[in-house]
């Protein structure tokens, strides 16, 4: 019987000829990623070794990546001390894939991993962040885990007792209409599946729309697959994956891709035609509360946010800058822009986008996660409304439980910044 992409990846990583849904396997981990929560992973890791007489050393320092992004630069002495502790651990263990608070190589973990070629098709990637699903965009099986599970992976080099997940096949066809793109597609899919519709399952993306989509767009859809509960989203590696890794990540060695068998078994198939898709908005306070933009037009917005691991890449910034160029952010509305990485920031600077944003009145911030999860800058005031290109709108997400967060694409956010109300970019 044929296998899905994830079944093939797990079989290879577990050293088995084949696996099927429900099998319990222990795959070798190809890459283990953490951000600031490495501080907790380190505690748990040290506890594992307690009383064993074995020196606490990670199984393979070259397969661990640590990226500071959630609170950069540190917003409190507590965070700064966590950063310091992690730096010490990184040095002591010889971890090389480390991205400190820096304006040259810093950025958000889910951008850094693809950007530096750390993820390859067929990899098993685990990360102490739920949006680790992002790396399925490069054809890897990539999923979020907790800190203790990461401590276990650092110790043993495997993901212990993984149940092979069932896969939902998502087939996307058609050309996006103007001002509609990958973010609208994934919001539409989450609305259709619901927030738990893909719980414990993988979303495997296919179809002409996906084949033609850039890696940036694929990262956006895999990033948000977790919002439908998916263990991972995955786009089987193809020519675009190889192009991205060669041209944008500077990878020079061979990039073999893993593709599903034609007779692979799927638990469900979802077909989507995007040719008539409208801009989509996820309304408070759930990501699956998705509506076509027409139903929320005119909603007053106090804060616009463009950026994050979902939509802070160069194409996102280019689309938003094109709309804002020569325009002004509305009075009574503030706009924050945070590129997904320092490299993207530098390119956006060279291309003039940053200047466009600043002239329009937007505040451009350093790369990081801050505003998205309300931990560091960009908090909402009581009962304020945000329109954001980020990935979650749970109550309290932007730091204030009385605030409301609407999620959208970069072009919707940019068009709405000019008017101060949710605005259709096709009519702006």
């Amino acid at each position, binding site marked *: 019987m044929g296998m899905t992409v994830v079944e093939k990846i797990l079989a290879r990583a577990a050293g088995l000829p084949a696996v099927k849904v429900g099998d*319990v396997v222990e795959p070798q981990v190809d890459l283990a990623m953490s951000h*600031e*929560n490495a*501080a*907790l992973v380190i*505690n*748990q890791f040290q*506890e*594992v*070794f*307690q*009383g*064993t007489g*074995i020196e606490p050393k990670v199984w393979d320092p070259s397969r661990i990546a640590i990226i500071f992004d*959630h*609170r950069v630069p540190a917003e*409190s002495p*507590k*965070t700064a001390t*966590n950063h310091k502790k992690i730096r010490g651990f990184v040095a002591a263990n010889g971890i090389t894939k480390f991205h400190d608070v820096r304006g040259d190589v810093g950025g958000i973990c889910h951008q850094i991993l693809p950007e530096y070629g750390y993820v390859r098709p067929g990899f098993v990637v685990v*990360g*102490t*962040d*739920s949006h*680790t699903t992002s790396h399925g965009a490069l054809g890897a099986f990539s999923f*979020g*885990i*907790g*800190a*203790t*599970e990461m*401590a*276990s992976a650092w*110790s*043993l080099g495997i993901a*212990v*007792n*993984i*149940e092979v997940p069932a896969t939902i096949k998502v087939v996307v066809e058609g050309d996006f209409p103007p001002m509609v793109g990958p973010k609208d597609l994934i919001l539409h899919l989450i609305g259709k599946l619901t*927030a*738990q519709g893909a*719980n*414990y399952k993988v979303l495997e993306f296919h179809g002409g729309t996906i084949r033609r989509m850039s890696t940036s767009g694929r990262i956006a859809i895999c990033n948000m697959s977790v919002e439908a*509960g998916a*263990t991972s989203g995955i786009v089987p590696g193809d020519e675009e994956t190889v192009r991205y890794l060669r041209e944008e990540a500077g990878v020079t060695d061979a990039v073999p891709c893993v593709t599903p068998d034609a007779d692979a078994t799927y638990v469900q198939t979802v077909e989507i035609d995007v040719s008539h898709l409208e801009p989509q908005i996820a309304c408070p306070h*759930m990501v699956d509360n998705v509506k076509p933009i027409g139903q929320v037009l005119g909603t007053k917005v106090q804060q616009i946010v463009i950026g994050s691991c979902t939509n802070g890449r160069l194409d996102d910034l280019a689309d938003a800058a094109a709309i804002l160029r020569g325009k002004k952010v509305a009075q009574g509305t503030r706009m924050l822009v945070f590129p997904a990485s320092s490299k993207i920031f530098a390119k956006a600077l060279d291309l003039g986008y940053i200047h466009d944003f600043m002239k329009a009145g937007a505040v451009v911030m350093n790369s990081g996660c801050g505003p998205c*999860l*309300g*931990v560091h800058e960009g908090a909402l005031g009581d009962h304020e409304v945000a329109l954001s290109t980020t990935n*979650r709108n*749970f*109550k*309290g*997400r932007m*730091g204030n*439980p009385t605030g409301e967060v609407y999620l959208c694409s970069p072009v919707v956010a940019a068009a709405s910044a000019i008017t101060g109300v949710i605005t259709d970019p096709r009519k702006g």
Partner: protein
Amino acid sequence: MAKVIIKLENDISTDDIYPGRFMATVLPSETPQFAFFDRTEFNAQLKAKAFPAGSIIVGGENFGCGSSREQACSTLKGHEVAVVARSISRIFLQNAINLGLQVVLCPGIEASEGDDLEITATQVLNRATGQAYDLVQLPAARKGIMDAGGLIPYTRARLMAKG
């Protein structure tokens, strides 16, 4: 037998259980103070130790959705509460098992605040209504971890065996 101390709606997120702004706090000894922080009254009751150990939080579908933050489990474990929910999101469930937070999957559960529940090996009995609901066994793949008392002792044993 234990009392339901709160009945929650569907899709309770980890931001609800443990708001992101407290994520720099990682120690299990410190996380309990922020449990359900924005549900001010409930948070105050938890902090005042108003509930005996084993008290039950009843959730709906998709309990613990969202972030992978383990604080969402350590904060509840610190209060020695149990979670009975209709369904539980993947990462939260794994974190709960890894840390030894008691979680019960009970797809049909109907219960209100103040009800007494009895959890057996196969059912949840609501003593207030006289109804019994079948529970779903936790993933068999994770049994070794549960038997070992959590992922840390489990990993330690695996490490020792490896030599």
